[in-house]
């Protein structure tokens, strides 16, 4: 079976994010770029499926100059090859544009399954997997914590996380599956994998080759700011009994929360 994995680079989650000087974007100078954590679960799941059902794992990505590092790390973990739309105009494009680009890449590959992370921890839009499924006219399962593919490769069983429990889904393949934390424990690369990755192909494609129009969006960014909720910063002193008594009094009479 042929599995495509959508993978992007994001600033590490411990990065400090500041608005840029023109307040129309964020200042990402000096941040450490990592593979989006949820995409790691997607890749791991693809690699496990490949161990079970012979086939190929192809990584699809959109990025700038640094994206090569992410591709090599995915190949070192066991992906077979990577295809990258290397075009800065697409990197932070509207999710509709990203979904169009990934759909164009996927159509050339005709995978049986596409695995994505449930969201990028940069823009937090949780949009691309469902949009990609719609563009391809495939079914979807998002926020998936368990996935089983039937032996005939024609259908899958997935569990997705919802409020207060899990939904179990039966899905006809091909489909788009968006991975949630808990789906698996991603592996680490070993030296053999890192050496092997150097010989694996990374194909760079252009927007023109994919038949894509220049990115556009109706969403206009007016301002990027930082949360600035004033906090009371009141330390409650005393022994534990006094602290608790005072806190409960405050929550009850001042905050009216109890």
């Amino acid at each position, binding site marked *: 079976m042929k599995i495509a994995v959508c993978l992007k680079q994001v600033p590490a989650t411990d990065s400090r994010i500041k608005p840029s000087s023109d307040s129309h974007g964020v200042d990402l100078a000096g941040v450490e770029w990592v593979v989006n954590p949820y995409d790691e679960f997607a890749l791991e799941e693809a690699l496990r499926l490949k161990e079970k059902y012979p086939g190929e794992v192809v990584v699809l990505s959109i990025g700038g100059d640094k994206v090569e590092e992410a591709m090599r790390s995915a190949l070192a973990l066991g992906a077979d090859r990577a295809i990258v739309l290397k075009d800065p105009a697409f990197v932070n494009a509207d999710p509709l544009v990203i979904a169009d680009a990934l759909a164009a890449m996927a159509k050339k590959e005709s995978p049986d399954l596409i695995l994505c992370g449930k969201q990028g921890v940069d823009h937090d839009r949780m949009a691309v997997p469902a949009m990609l499924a719609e563009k391809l006219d495939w079914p979807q399962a998002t926020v998936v914590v368990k996935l089983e593919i039937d032996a005939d490769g024609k259908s899958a069983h997935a569990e997705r996380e919802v409020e207060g429990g899990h939904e179990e889904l*039966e899905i006809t393949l091909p*489909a788009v599956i968006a991975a949630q934390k808990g789906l698996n424990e991603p592996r680490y690369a070993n030296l053999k994998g890192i050496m092997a990755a150097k010989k694996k192909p990374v194909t760079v494609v252009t927007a023109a080759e994919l038949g894509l129009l220049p990115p556009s969006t109706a969403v206009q960014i007016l301002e990027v700011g930082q949360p600035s909720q004033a906090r009371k910063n009141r330390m409650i002193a005393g022994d534990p009994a006094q602290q608790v008594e005072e806190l409960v009094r405050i929550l009850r009479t001042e905050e009216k929360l109890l």
Partner: protein
Amino acid sequence: MAHLVLTIVEHRDGQIRKSSLEALALGKRLAAEGGGTQAALIVGKGISNLAADIGARGAALVAIADHDIATQYSTEVYATAVQRAAEKTGAGLILESATAQGKDLAPRIAARLNAPYLTDIVDARVENGNLVAVRPEYAGKALLKVSVPITKVVVTTRPNVFPAETPQTQAAPETTSIDVSDVIPRARVVKFVGASKETVDVAEAEIIVSGGRGLKGPENFPLVFELAKALGAGVGASRAVVDAGWIDHDHQVGQTGKTVSPTLYVACGISGAIQHLAGMRTSKCIVAINKDADAPIFKIADYGLAGDLFEILPRLTEAVKKAKGAH
């Protein structure tokens, strides 16, 4: 007046979900600001009787897709229902709460309608025919104020942020039925497995009690659960303790977990790593309990208790029970 807004209403156990009441209140306000009305859509089986309540919450028209095929949530069935309701009502602004369903469905609709999508907004108004909305990125480390024409946009609202309104007595809303009988879903929910927990899900909890490394081990997590139970709260956790396997990941609050905005957030033994703070900093009132008086969590707390949580938590649980019992 034209229907400007189409709000997708979720229901559970025969009731409109609280997050949908919030969306309906927002939809009513945005429609009024744009000089139009709100329409609503409800999808399911045997749900037509909810139309009156939806009308009382500010919908002038209720589109109803009531069919066997919609008994369980299905992205494909629901997306078609929304598409048809949007065509029928002419509404350009499609609104839903950012619940598990909303986050699965809304982007699919956006792609189908080729409409821009704004996820998890925390503020919104209509200005000169545009929706001006604020949405968090980087788990709330950045807030983007954006503008998009109201004529074509799909939006999800963050639960617990927009206030719900009490129902108004008024004439029953106009209703219209939406046919979804022709949709053959390729992904079907075959079973719902409820979590075996007594507490509220952290994503929709109004009060959250979270535990971190300061609990010293998974055997002490019951201290957090006890307090949560006394408060009627959901249980959250830091990434460190989730990664250590002390508690299931669906409790994790933070950048690779859930972003929450409860009325009250009680952080127990959490030092306040930047990725955790990002997930809970929009809480209305934050209480921090930590041994280390210099822990970063105290910088964003309203009330700080520097001390031994093993001494404080059991006493706090008892005091809360007593305070609540005294009502």
